[in-house]
């Protein structure tokens, strides 16, 4: 771990492609994830155009057949969750931040880390390749229920479907390797003096997310192997005619699928916590409360999965049970939101771009959380199930998590990552240009869902009840807002590229933050720390009364206020 680095001139390939440096691997994950997000964004543009203006030739794509529509929707969901949210929130931020924030020079297993990214890249390539095989990519929804997913005669994608399963399987192996690294590194490579409660909350969140992932992914991998066998060898694991059971897949999928929500939620909440403490200049309220609530949420998240199957023919008594657990799990999450707000209470807040994103996360996620309670009640779900109400609900959770969470993180750590400051003005333009259209996309979808518009239909022309002028107007509002939101992402890309090369040079600690990554040069050199730091206190000692400056870096020698208070 601590032997000195022998520095030699590294070639471009060594430095950026086959690097074992955690920062480079983090960037690889981030840029691959962002590239995939562009694909996912393009897909949603195409199928939203089809929904708003049925039958038109979509500019840049052409006519949208039913088969293409299904594939676009399926892969939009697949990409945004598995190839954007997870690589960017966990893998990119986790890789970049964990060693820097605990005062280490790299991950404990750097080569396993590199292997993790390489498998991830392979998985992305397999998925992209599946769009170009005969009949195109898989179109049986990101949840891939059999028999639709198991039999080519139903899904009409004899190659696309197995390639989808293989891509997802590979991706999970990649995150498994990454997760092992995260857990081991956080436990075993911390700077001297950094005790459990001195670890920045974002790292706890990323590591707990990794543990949740590792506990839940096994069943899905088992299910995926059986699905692949059904597709390729002709076994009947999910086929009742052969003695199999199609519901089996749903249980295995959602046993993973619900914890997966927290797998991506927790890193985003961690990012938000860091930003809030820094820009409120206050100690993070209830550090231990947050930690224990997250543990409770993590455990509960394994006993709520069947709320996705209320309509699938499960025993109604079981549905009742899962309604109760689902309502219980909203308690620690709601509590977390209150605790976060308590950090803001009475603070003099700096409304910088990262802070705006962090606050927007709270506001928008709240809407997602509250509408989730409607769906968690099995009685109401009978009506709302399979409508756009569900679509709007989970986008109000996943967009704050994946998109807002990412922007919060990237705007906050950009100076450290690239050594330059992002432009604040254009950062704010991008912020409002994203947040306002976002709400104009999904509020109409709540209304459409309540009106009974079901999902996974490529157009409503043949549904007279749903093809009214009022409802069609709502669809057009959503689509136009989507295009506006996508267009504003160009502002971010330009801002990022411009600032990267021409932005104001960043100091070591531009936000006056306490955590260890702000004690090394921006960007940090290979090996991170010239001298390994020692930690003397927790990460959130802001505006301490005994201090002249309003922050107190973790590595600054001196007393630990948490101890002297006793």
């Amino acid at each position, binding site marked *: 771990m601590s032997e000195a680095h022998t520095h030699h001139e590294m070639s471009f390939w060594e430095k950026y492609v086959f690097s074992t440096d955690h920062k480079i691997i983090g960037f690889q994950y981030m840029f691959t994830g962002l590239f995939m997000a562009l694909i996912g964004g393009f897909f949603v543009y195409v199928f939203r155009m089809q929904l708003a203006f049925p039958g038109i030739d979509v500019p840049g794509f052409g006519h949208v057949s039913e088969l293409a529509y299904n594939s676009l929707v399926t892969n939009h969901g697949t990409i945004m969750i598995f190839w954007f949210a997870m690589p960017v929130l966990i893998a990119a931020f986790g890789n970049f931040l964990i060693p820097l924030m605990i005062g280490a020079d790299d991950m*404990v297993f750097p080569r396993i880390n590199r292997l993790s990214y390489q498998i991830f890249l392979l998985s992305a390539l397999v998925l992209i390749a599946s769009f170009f095989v005969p009949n195109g990519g898989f179109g049986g929804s990101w949840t891939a229920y059999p028999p639709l997913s198991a039999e080519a005669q139903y899904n009409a994608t004899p190659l696309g479907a197995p390639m989808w399963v293989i891509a997802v399987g590979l991706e999970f192996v990649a995150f498994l390797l990454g997760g092992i690294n995260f*857990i081991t590194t956080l436990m075993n490579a911390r*700077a001297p*003096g950094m005790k459990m409660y001195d670890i920045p909350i974002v790292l706890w969140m990323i590591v707990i997310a990794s543990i949740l992932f590792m506990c839940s992914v096994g069943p899905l991998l*088992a299910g995926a*192997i059986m699905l692949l066998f059904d597709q390729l060898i002709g076994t009947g694991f999910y086929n009742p005619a052969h*003695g*199999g059971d199609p519901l089996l897949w749903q249980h295995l999928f959602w046993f993973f699928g619900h914890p997966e929500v927290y797998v991506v939620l927790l890193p985003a909440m961690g990012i938000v916590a860091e930003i809030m403490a820094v820009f409120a200049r206050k100690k993070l309220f209830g550090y231990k409360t947050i930690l224990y609530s997250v543990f409770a949420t993590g455990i509960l998240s394994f006993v709520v999965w069947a709320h996705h199957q209320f309509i699938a023919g499960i025993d109604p008594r079981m549905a009742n049970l899962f309604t109760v657990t689902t309502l219980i799990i909203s308690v620690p999450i709601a509590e977390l939101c209150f605790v976060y707000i308590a950090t803001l209470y009475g603070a003099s807040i700096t409304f910088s771009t990262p802070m705006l994103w962090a606050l927007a996360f709270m506001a928008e996620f709240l809407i997602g959380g509250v509408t989730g309670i409607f769906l968690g009640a099995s009685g109401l779900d009978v009506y709302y199930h399979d409508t756009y109400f569900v679509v709007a609900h989970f986008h109000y959770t996943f967009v704050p998590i994946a998109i807002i969470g990412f922007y919060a993180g990237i705007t906050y750590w950009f100076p450290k990552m690239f050594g330059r400051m992002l432009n604040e003005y254009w950062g704010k333009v991008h912020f409002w240009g994203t947040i306002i259209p976002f709400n104009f996309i999904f509020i109409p979808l709540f209304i459409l869902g309540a009106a009974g518009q079901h999902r996974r239909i490529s157009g409503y022309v043949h549904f007279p009840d749903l093809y009214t002028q009022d409802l069609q107007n709502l669809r057009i509002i959503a689509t136009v807002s989507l295009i506006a939101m996508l267009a504003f992402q160009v502002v971010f890309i330009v801002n990022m590229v411009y600032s990267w090369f021409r932005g104001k040079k960043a100091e070591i600690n531009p936000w006056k933050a306490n955590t260890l990554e702000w004690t090394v040069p921006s960007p940090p050199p290979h090996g991170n720390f010239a001298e390994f730091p020692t930690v003397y206190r927790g990460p959130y000692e802001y505006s301490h009364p005994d201090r002249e400056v309003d922050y107190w870096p973790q590595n600054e020698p001196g007393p630990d206020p948490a101890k002297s208070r006793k």
Partner: protein
Amino acid sequence: MSGPQSVGSPRTLTRTGPVIPSSLLAMVALVLTEIMLFAALISSFLIVKADASIWPPLGQPRLPVIVTAVNTGFLLGSGFMFFLANRRFRVGDFPASRKLMGMAVFLGGVFVAVQGYEWSKLLGFGLTVTSSIYGSFFYLIIGFHALHAVGALVAMLHLFLTFGPQGQSASRFLGTQVFWYFVVGIWPILYYLVYLS
């Protein structure tokens, strides 16, 4: 407790001493995932079995219970040998440790070979992956276990062959050991659920 501590070169300070060695922690995390994976396979099997009116399905051969019971003994013996090898390793008696490792590899190899032989007979009797859901689950679960066993044996063989007079990388020894205990430990459960009940 409070107050500035010695601020020498931090490099010379001991870092937060790992309570659990990294290789062990990593392997435990992997094994945790594997346990969940096998748990899913087993519960899928039990659900399908409970759904079936006749089990095993008509016209499908019975599994070799007795031979496999004996074979289970070989596998458990292999695990025990690794355990003994570890005890010798701890006290620095590397030649003895190496010998016991060799025994562990040998007994593990016997287990896999007997399994393979029994499979070839079962295939002859008409139990294939697609002959029935019974066959599908048998080859999936038992095959998956066999795959793990082969992988672990390769690692153990490599460990055995690279054993020097100074012993062996302790972390690799530890990691391989944990994985082998997992493969050995889960087998009796699989045997009971798939072969006996």
